[in-house]
């Protein structure tokens, strides 16, 4: 990867990477900005080893690892058992479906949330997600299934609560 392709990668991927990190960090803009900067710095330092067509995957891989580090250091990790109460208590206050979805998404474990975002927003295949998150393809399939099922149950629960 040369200077030109690196700057092109900044143009092509910085917005999407920022969105991915921002959703993962529940809209912590400052931290998300720092992580994006770190990702591109890492890409520049490894430009001799990373080809242009692998630049995007490399950026998301670094971003995913840094998000996990942020949660690990700050203790912000939420467990699956916690999400029901939080979502149900928050949901009645808003009618915006998109807002509900993001709140539900924020209740997922970091790994599952990253997988959902990589699949839905970036359109990566299971194999590519496995490479980015450093797990097997089978684990991607299982984690995505669990994440979607939780999202569906949460959304149905919030709808039922609202109906009452």
């Amino acid at each position: 990867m040369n200077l030109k392709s690196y700057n092109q990668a900044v143009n092509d991927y910085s917005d999407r990477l920022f969105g991915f990190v921002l959703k993962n960090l529940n809209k912590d803009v400052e931290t998300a900005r720092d992580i994006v900067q770190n990702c591109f710095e890492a890409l520049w330092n490894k430009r001799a080893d990373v080809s242009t067509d692998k630049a995007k995957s490399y950026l998301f891989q670094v971003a995913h690892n840094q998000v996990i580090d942020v949660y690990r250091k700050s203790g912000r990790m939420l467990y699956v058992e916690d999400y029901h109460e939080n979502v149900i208590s928050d949901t009645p206050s808003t009618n915006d479906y998109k807002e509900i979805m993001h709140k539900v998404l924020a209740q997922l474990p970091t790994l599952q949330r990253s997988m959902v975002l990589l699949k839905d927003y970036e359109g990566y295949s299971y194999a590519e997600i496995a490479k980015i998150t450093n797990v097997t393809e089978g684990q991607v399939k299982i984690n995505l299934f669990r994440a979607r099922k939780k999202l569906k149950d949460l959304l149905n629960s919030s709808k039922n609560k609202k109906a009452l």
Partner: protein
Amino acid sequence: MKIDLQNYEEWMVTFMDGELSQDELLAFHEFLAAHPDLQTELDSYEAVKFDDKEGVVFENKEMLYKKAGALVFLKKAWPLAAAIILGIAIWPFIQNKTEELPVVTQENKVETKKTEVDVKEENLTQVEKEILVEPKQVTPAVVMAQQPHTKTESAPALVSRKQKKNVQQLKENIKEEYVDVPNVDVQEREIQKIPESKIIDRSLKEVVLVKEKKKSLPEPKAILTPNFLDVEEEEKALLVISADSHPVIYEKLNAAVNKVETKLETIKEIKQTPITVCIGKRKLFTINN
């Protein structure tokens, strides 16, 4: 894995993610056709898919861009910076080089001194043997003795009157013994006619010693060469040290003079040597002394 009522949700998610193969896709549609009540559940899964492409913008792209100009400057600047740092680092050594030299020279001189002493001892033994066994090989000694009033180019040596007398006596004896042959060099004739008993003289031994030592040195040194002083020079001299009267002091003085001479020559050579600073094969600068 075959689709059934136990695992159909997993199939639905995989279908939604577009990860089913062609055969799996056919099997899934057949199963869904056989169970139409599951279509509602499939719609629920479709509802939790994030398919909106909301436009999040990273506003600080300028801080991410890399500029070629800065890179080129850095590439050109680093050898210069390295050279400056290297120059600063070695400058004290260059400054102190002249002061440090005597230490090195002193160490080298110790070895040289040893060598001279050894050579002297070896020469003494060798010369004595040569004089006793083969009188013809003592030519240098005779040549030196044949030039009593010739001044050397450097400082005159201090030799005793007794030494002078010994050589003169030797000269007379030689003249008495050889037969005058026309067209033959006087020195050659003297060499051939020198009797062994006359050559074994302490002053001559000293002459031979000095001459032999001169051979081992790169340049001949006239200091303390046992040439003979004029009467006026001898009267002006504060102290006359001869090999006869003060043999130990004479040898030590001789060694000390040679030592100082060698040291001065070494320092002179080093001062005249230019110092070149290089990084790899690249020559940076040269300091001419």
